[in-house]
C-alpha cells in the first residue's frame, strides 16, 4: 500500500509542477505588469513651494546647500526642474544614503505629495523640465516598433537589448528598466541622472520617448522561450549550460555506468 501511495504521489508530480509553474508565471506577471500611469500632479501652489522649501532645508540642504546652489559634494539644483526631483526622490535615489560610485534606487523616503512639494520648490528656483503628463508616458499610445529602433541606437548599449541593465566602469552600472514606472523612464531620459546622458526633447521628441516607453513596457514580463536567466546573454546562459547542463549529463553517465545494488 505504501508503494502504491508513493507511485500515486509521484505520478502527480509533473502536473503539480506544471500548475506551480503556471501559477508562478501568472503571479510574476501580476507583480511585474505596469501599473497605470501616475495621475498628473496638480499645479503647484505657493503653499507647495513653501512646504517644499522646508522639506528641502531639512533633508537636502546639507549636501546641495541652503540655497540649492550646490556644494563641493553635490551639484546645483537650480534649473534641473521638477522632473529631476520627481525621478531622483521618487525612485528613492535621493536623499542619498552614502557616498559610492552610484546612488542606487532604494525604498522611497517621501510620499508623492511631499515629492511634488519638493519638486515645486526646486522648479521655482529656475526653469527646467516639468513632470510629464499621464498622456505623454502612456505605453498604449506609443509605437513600440519605432521604440525598439530608437532603444537599440540610444539605450541598448548600456541598458541591454531588452532593458535588463548592465555594467559600466568603476562600479557604476545601468539599472534594469523593467520595474521603472513610465513616468520615471520619461524623466530619466529628459534629465539624464548620474552617468546617463541627457536625451532632451530636441534629441528624442516626446512622441519618440513614448515609443521607447512602449517598447520597454513589453520587455521583462515574459520571454517566449521560458526562463530568460536574467536576459544577460552569454554569461548566465553559459553558466547554466556548463554547470547545470553538463552536470546533469555527467550525472546521467555515472548513473548509467554504476552497478545496480
Amino acid at each position, binding site marked *: 500500500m505504501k508503494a502504491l501511495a508513493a507511485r500515486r504521489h509521484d505520478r502527480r508530480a*509533473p502536473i503539480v509542477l506544471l500548475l506551480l509553474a503556471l501559477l508562478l508565471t501568472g503571479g510574476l506577471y501580476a507583480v511585474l505588469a505596469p501599473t497605470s500611469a501616475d495621475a498628473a500632479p496638480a499645479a503647484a501652489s505657493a503653499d507647495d513651494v513653501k512646504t517644499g522649501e522646508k522639506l528641502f532645508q531639512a533633508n537636502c540642504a546639507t549636501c546641495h546647500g541652503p540655497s540649492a546652489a550646490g556644494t563641493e559634494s553635490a551639484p546645483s539644483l537650480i534649473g534641473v526642474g521638477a522632473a529631476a526631483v520627481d525621478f531622483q526622490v521618487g525612485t528613492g535615489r535621493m536623499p542619498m544614503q552614502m557616498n559610492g560610485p552610484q546612488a542606487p534606487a532604494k525604498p522611497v523616503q517621501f510620499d508623492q505629495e511631499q515629492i511634488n512639494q519638493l519638486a515645486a520648490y526646486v522648479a521655482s528656483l529656475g526653469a527646467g523640465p516639468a513632470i510629464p503628463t499621464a498622456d505623454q508616458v502612456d505605453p498604449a499610445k506609443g509605437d513600440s516598433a519605432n521604440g525598439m529602433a530608437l532603444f537599440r541606437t540610444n539605450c541598448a548599449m548600456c541598458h541591454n537589448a531588452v532593458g535588463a541593465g548592465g555594467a559600466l566602469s568603476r562600479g557604476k552600472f545601468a539599472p534594469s528598466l523593467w520595474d521603472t514606472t513610465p513616468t520615471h523612464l520619461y524623466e530619466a531620459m529628459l534629465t539624464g541622472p548620474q552617468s546617463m546622458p541627457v*536625451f532632451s526633447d530636441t*534629441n528624442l521628441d516626446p512622441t519618440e520617448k513614448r515609443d521607447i516607453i512602449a517598447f520597454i513596457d513589453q520587455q521583462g514580463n515574459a520571454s*517566449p*522561450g521560458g526562463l530568460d536567466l536574467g536576459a544577460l546573454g552569454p554569461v548566465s546562459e553559459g553558466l547554466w549550460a556548463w554547470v547545470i547542463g553538463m552536470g546533469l549529463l555527467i550525472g546521467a553517465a555515472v548513473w548509467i555506468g554504476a552497478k545496480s545494488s
Partner: protein
Amino acid sequence: MSTHDNSHELEARDGHAVLDRFEDPGHPEHHPRLGDLDPKANKKAERQVLFLFGISVLGTIGFVVAYFALPPGEDAESMRASNFALGAALAFALLGIGTGAIHWAKALMNDHEKSEERHLQASDAETREAAVQALKDGADDSGISRRGALKGAVVTAVALFPLTIALPLVGNIGEDWNVGKLKHTLWKKGTKLARDPSGRPIKASDVTIGSVFHVIPETLEDAEHPLDEKAKAVVLLVRLDPRDIKSEQGEGWSYDGIVAFSKICTHVGCPVALYEQQTHHLLCPCHQSTFDVSDGARVVFGPAKRPLPQLPITVDDEGYLIAQSDFHEPVGPSFWEREK
C-alpha cells in the same frame, strides 16, 4: 565468450610463458543484487521500471493535451506557457523511456560479467607478404620508375587539383579586395549630421549640454549600400561644457563644446557608445576600452591603442551641424595598409 582463462591461452599459443605480462586479475567477485535474492525487491524494481515508462506515457499524453489546450497566441505570455508545457511534457516522455530502459537493464537483466576475446590485429605473415607483392607488381607494371614524363605528369596533376577547392574558398573570403575603401567614409565637406535612425538633421542648438546624439550622415540613404556605409560612418556626438574640453585632435574641430567622434572602436571595431555623462568617459562594451571624450578621445583604459578618430564639424548658415571634411585617418581597427 569465456570466463577468465586468458593468460593460460596466451601461454599455450606461444609455447612458453610470457613473463613480462601482468597476470589477468580476472573479474571481481560477483555480488548478487538485492533483487536476485529477494523476490520482493525484484518486484519493486519491476514496479520502478513500470513507473518510469508510465511517466513517459503521461508525458506524451500531456504533450497532446498541451498542444490543444495551450496554443501559442500573439503575446509572449501565451507562447511561454505553450513552450513550457510542450517542452516539459516532451522531456518527461523521452526521459521516461530512457531511464526506464536503463533501469530495466541494470536492475532486472542478467548482471554476470562476461569477457570477449579480441582477435590479434595484425594479419598473418603470408597475407602481409602477398599484399606487399601486389603493390610491387602494380608499380613494376606501370613502369613509373622508367617513365619519367608520366611520373612528372601525374605528380603535377595531383598537386594542382587542390586549387579548384582552395581558389573559391580564398576568393569568397571578401568580395572585394579594395582596402582603400576602409580609408574613406561617406562624410564630406558640408554633409549634415543627422539622427540615427530617423535621419533628421541636427541643429547645434538642439544639442544641450550632457546630451548624446547617435549620428549618421544625412546622405546615408542615398548611398549605394547604406548599411556598408553606415558601418564606417557612424558617429557619436556629445556636448560638453567648453571649459571641460582638455584637448582635441585638431584645431577648431569642435563647435561650441560639441565634439564628434567615430563610434567604431580602434581595437576590433565594436560600436563604442556607453557614454558616462559625469566622467566624459566613453566605454566599449566588448573589451572595456575606455576613451576620454574631453581629452581628444584619449585611451584611458583597455586594449585599444589609438584614440577614436574625431570628425571635424562646424555649422552652416541655418545652424545645422555639418562636417568640415571626412575623418583625417581611417576609422576602426588597424589593418596592414593603414599607414600607407
